[in-house]
């Protein structure tokens, strides 16, 4: 199926190109906007990625998947824009290998669904994700939001699978801790309201 799509792209079939845009534009946008925090710049990454596809489809190696190739191009373009936005940020900075142990032990996962899925909770999640370093954020988005495999994420970001696993683990623990702090307050308010 994918081979047919790639063959059609190489023959510059407009329908195939439209299909790829329909399938991947939002995915690319999500990665870009999570890295850049700028909708206009994220649109620019989507545009750059599809322009690259137009120019370079003939060099595409079929051993990689089209999705991975597109993510990789998008990530490179987002990195370039991010360096321009914030030259002081080291994109590969991820401190040391020590994983901080969880500190907040409140069981917020059993809170009512309404609290967990409300607009405020969603905003808290987005804010928490945005506080991760870009390198952790990119791994988290590709693995846990877009559900790419460890290997595909590694290929898309140009890092080793082991680094994907370490970064994903760090990202998950950091996000859990941040959200635990938020829900601790919510639960406190809920408890206060009941008593």
């Amino acid at each position, binding site marked *: 199926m994918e081979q047919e799509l790639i063959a059609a792209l190489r023959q*510059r079939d407009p329908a195939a190109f439209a299909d790829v845009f329909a399938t991947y534009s*939002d995915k690319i946008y*999500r990665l870009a906007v999570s890295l850049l925090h700028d909708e206009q710049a994220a649109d620019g990454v989507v*545009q750059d990625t599809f322009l690259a596809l*137009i120019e370079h489809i003939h060099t595409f190696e079929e051993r990689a998947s089209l999705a991975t190739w597109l993510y990789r191009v998008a990530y490179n373009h987002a990195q370039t824009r991010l360096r321009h936005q914030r030259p002081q940020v080291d994109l590969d900075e991820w401190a040391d290998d020590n994983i901080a142990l969880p500190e907040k*032990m409140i069981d917020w996962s059993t809170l009512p669904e309404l609290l967990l899925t409300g607009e405020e909770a969603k905003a808290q999640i987005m804010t928490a*994700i945005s506080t991760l370093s870009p390198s952790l954020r990119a791994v988290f*988005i590709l693995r846990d*939001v877009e559900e790419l495999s460890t290997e595909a994420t590694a290929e898309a970001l140009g890092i080793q699978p082991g680094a994907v696993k370490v970064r994903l683990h760090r990202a*998950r623990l950091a996000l859990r801790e941040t959200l635990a702090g938020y829900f601790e307050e919510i639960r406190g308010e809920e408890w206060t309201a009941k008593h």
Partner: protein
Amino acid sequence: MDCKTLITYLSDYIDRELDESLAAEARDHLATCPNCSIVLDSTQKMILMSKLTGQVAIPKARRERLWSEIEAAFNERNAAD
């Protein structure tokens, strides 16, 4: 398995990437450690919530504009070949 080891393997456990003997040790630890169970449950919930919350799409008007620009570049490139 102690708490520190469980936390080290937490993501591999969630992703079912632990070999069976380590997974069994993790399960045994989780059965007797309320704190690690809380960390596991809340991490899994956080992942689920992020997946749902993260599914943003390009707003329609901007998406249409983007497509028209990209389509124009595609047609221009085709005409040049």
